[in-house]
């Protein structure tokens, strides 16, 4: 499938790299041209040599989303560092470009919950951390090394 990832920080770049390794076609959009370094890190060949696409541009600009291939995306990941940006572009991907699978990172648990009720697939790292930490405090689970 063709995966478009908007926001190439730790999260976005890690998803992009794994999807590429699984054999998917991956396009990444970020407003910072330097962000591509995260995709090259730990690899001998650059992201583009490995077949990846990288577009520098602002997520809210339709032209940038089109250049990154949103009109043929099967999956869309909104993983910029801003909840507001993520929530707007995820809805643009879903409603305007009718991308079949849209996932969006939302740090604020309350908004993650409400938008999930409206039909968006929200992932809330804050809520996940709260639940895991609470379970660990109660002794219900025990982590060896890094959890998750």
């Amino acid at each position, binding site marked *: 499938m063709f995966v478009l990832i908007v926001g190439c920080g730790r999260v976005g770049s890690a998803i992009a790299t794994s999807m590429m390794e699984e054999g998917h076609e991956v396009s990444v959009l970020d407003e910072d041209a330097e962000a591509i370094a995260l995709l090259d890190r730990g690899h001998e060949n650059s992201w583009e040599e490995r077949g990846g696409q990288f577009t520098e541009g602002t997520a*809210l600009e339709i032209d940038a989303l089109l250049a990154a291939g949103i009109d043929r995306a099967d999956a869309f990941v909104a993983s910029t560092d801003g909840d507001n940006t993520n929530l707007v572009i995820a809805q*643009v991907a879903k*409603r305007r470009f009718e991308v079949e699978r849209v996932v969006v990172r939302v740090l604020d648990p309350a908004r993650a919950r409400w938008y999930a009720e*409206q039909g968006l697939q929200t992932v809330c790292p804050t809520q996940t951390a709260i639940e895991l930490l609470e379970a660990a405090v109660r002794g219900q689970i025990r982590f060896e090394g890094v959890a998750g």
Partner: protein
Amino acid sequence: MYVVIVGAGKVGWNLARELINKRHEVTVIEADAHRYAVVEQELEHSAMYGDGSELWVLERSGIERADLVVAVTGDDEGNVLISQVAREKYGVARVVARCNNPRNLQHFELLGVRPAISATDLILRLIEHEVPKYGLVHLLDLPEERLEIIELEVGDGSPAAGRAVKDLGLPDGSLVISILREGGGFVPTGDSVIEPGDEVLVVLDVGIESRVTELFTARTAA
């Protein structure tokens, strides 16, 4: 009427003041601590500190009983989402949002946020709907930039009629930015000739308005 305003910038603050003067109940939410401190000195308990994008902040402002929510932060994504939750989650009957960048208007429309107001859009609407009765309409004042934009109607006897823009003798600090003619408009060059019946938009430095208007006003009428 109870009004929640998100964003205490120039627009939000002035709007809050006007509405309070008209005896409405107002809460204005501001996310910047410094700005909040300034605004709170005047508006006191009507000012509230917090990020209006966060649901708990909106809830603490009493959004559920608001008759009107106005989202006028400098952040378009914030404005569109605040409007969306105001209407869809909290059932607010009237929502007005500011769109800072007209290119983002399409996102407001996509998410059903109406009316979204952009300054550009507003000027266009004034041009389309408010036929100037006095030959001159003050469209926009930009006091910080020390500029204003005025609209002038070119009457039959106007000394400007039949002249090219470059021959008008416009004072320094003024510029014709568009000519509206027969329902359309265009950005003129120095060679564009002004015709009777035109409406001309001029941007100018504060204080030279009379020197500009006299170039367009028929002497007999003056």
